[in-house]
């Protein structure tokens, strides 16, 4: 946990550093007439300072006195399941414009249900079908919000 906390603090410190670096490329101006870079520069410095304090606190804290809650270690299967779930959603986003909304939503529901352990074939087909049709009717037909048509042109 401590290692992951240090990594988290380090990432935030890096974000602060990047903000400072990028802000310095913009006009800073003066306090009287601030340029567009002044506010982000101040924020970047503040973030670096906070992250430094956090990291210093972590590094100098004795292990026995640490009060951070112990994270429950996720089972490898559950973590894989979560990554698959997120991956399937990302893949659906990638395919949305090509396949169109109805087909993408059908395939996404099918894969997400399968990832979460739904095995019954009837449910695996009918639920994605009903969801895809229902959401298409709601958004496209009822609310008149255009969604990607893709290959099937719906």
């Amino acid at each position, binding site marked *: 946990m401590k290692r992951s906390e240090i990594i988290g603090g380090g990432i935030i410190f890096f974000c602060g550093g990047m903000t400072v670096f*990028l802000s310095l490329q913009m006009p800073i101006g003066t*306090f*009287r007439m*601030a340029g567009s870079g002044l506010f982000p520069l101040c924020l970047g410095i503040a973030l670096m300072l*906070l992250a430094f304090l956090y990291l210093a606190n972590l590094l100098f804290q004795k292990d026995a006195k640490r009060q951070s809650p112990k994270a429950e270690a996720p089972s490898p299967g559950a973590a894989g399941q979560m990554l698959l779930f997120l991956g399937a959603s990302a893949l659906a986003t990638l395919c949305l*414009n090509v396949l169109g909304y109805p087909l993408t939503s059908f395939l996404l*529901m099918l894969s*997400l249900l399968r990832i*979460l352990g739904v095995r019954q074939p009837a449910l695996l087909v009918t639920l994605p079908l009903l969801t895809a049709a229902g959401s298409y009717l709601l958004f496209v037909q009822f609310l008149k919000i255009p969604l990607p048509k893709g290959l099937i042109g719906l």
Partner: protein
Amino acid sequence: MVESIQHLFTGFGIAATATNLLYCLLGAVAGTLVGILPGLGPIAGIALLIPVTFGLNPTSAIIMLCGIYYGAMYGGSTTSILLNVPGETASVITCIDGYQMARQGRAGPALAICAIGSFTAGTLAIFGMVFLAPPLAEAALAFGPPEYFSLMVCGFIVLSNVTGGSLIKSLMMAVLGLIIGTAGLDPVTGEYRFTFDTTYLLSGIEFVAVAIGLFGIAEVLANVDQPLEKLEQSVIVPRFRDLYPSLQDLKASVGAILRGAGIGFGVGLIPGPAPVIATYASYMVEKRISTHPETFGTGAIEGVAGPESANNAACQSAFIPLFVLGIPFAPPTAILLGALMIHGVVPGPMMIIEHPDVFWGVIASMYIGNFILLLLNLPFIPFFAGILRIPKKILLPLVMLFCLTGMYTVNNSVNDIWLMLFMGALGYLMRKWAYDAAPLLLALVIGPKMEVAFRQSLMLSHGNFGVFFERPISLVFLLATFLFLCVPAFRFIIRRFNGPPA
């Protein structure tokens, strides 16, 4: 005062039109469902339904979105009582006695008291709003950029202090949110910042994507990150005839409801996650003044009535700083601020004058909405409880699909979905590492206002930082900020002085 009552009646005239009643009902029902369903809180719920309101006039749109907020507060208690799983954070306290009542076969009275308490407290809070908002708006006219800047700084510090986690982590999240909020067009000079030569970032970061990602997708991912067998849940579904509380229950709850309403209304006016703080404060007060404190935790009805009333009152009074100062003090009202601006309504002291139809119409609709929720929550509780029987392995994919679709419809942009998924993954990691997402979202929404106030203040004072300390109102906010910053230091010193706990 008479003028306020006249305006309120005008508001009722606006809110009671067939169209607005329909949107109020839709908001209340959607909010109840959002509150009941795990994986969707009021923040993600409001953000998801913003696109649905695009075709509506501002009053109807805000009536519907507000309905979702307070509807979610009603709905959140249902899962707490029936499942021992809070629908949203403000319902955590209700689990303690509510679930115990359900286990004793008294789920019906617990749910009914929640509905009655929420209605009573919500109604009292609305009357408080009617009389407090106009004078506060007048007072807020005295606020200049330094006062607004100091108030926003104070708000962040208070929020970071009361979210329960580490102060430094919350502050880091707030600053990160402010940095993300600077992307896009500089509000003063019109130059582009942090766009990385992409057209997508020219208009800044889409706050709806951040909200749904951090609060909706992250919640779904956190649920999916569990072994399959843990995704199932058992629900106690009460029968209709068992719903009504006895006279003794009502007598025991009256005081708790009134005290909860008072506590909630007061807490809603200060920065921070008001409904959460209000429920904790109310529970503590009820336990302390009770003649039988030992029953708390074993199914005391006051432990349900007080916090649920406080929760609803805080949720209503949190609209006062939003409408009167234009500053949201909590993430759900921050989302509502974004929604108001999308609909061309700029909240602030001038809102009452410039958009009286929206202001008074929305306030009156809250009363109607509370009544609708009372009607919905008493007879339809078995129906809502039945929804909880839907297995999570079916519910979570549905929520994910709804988030993806809803996000696309905001700007018809796939890039928004990518941003939402990224924020979802970030929100998931933040949960794992115990970082609170609320300060980040709040900072993202009010960051541009804060920057403008900061730069205008310095322009006014010719670059002199003393302007923040020379003006009395600003000084009061900064002193409050200093005090809140000192609280953790005092706690640390006291802990050191007392030694480590045995």
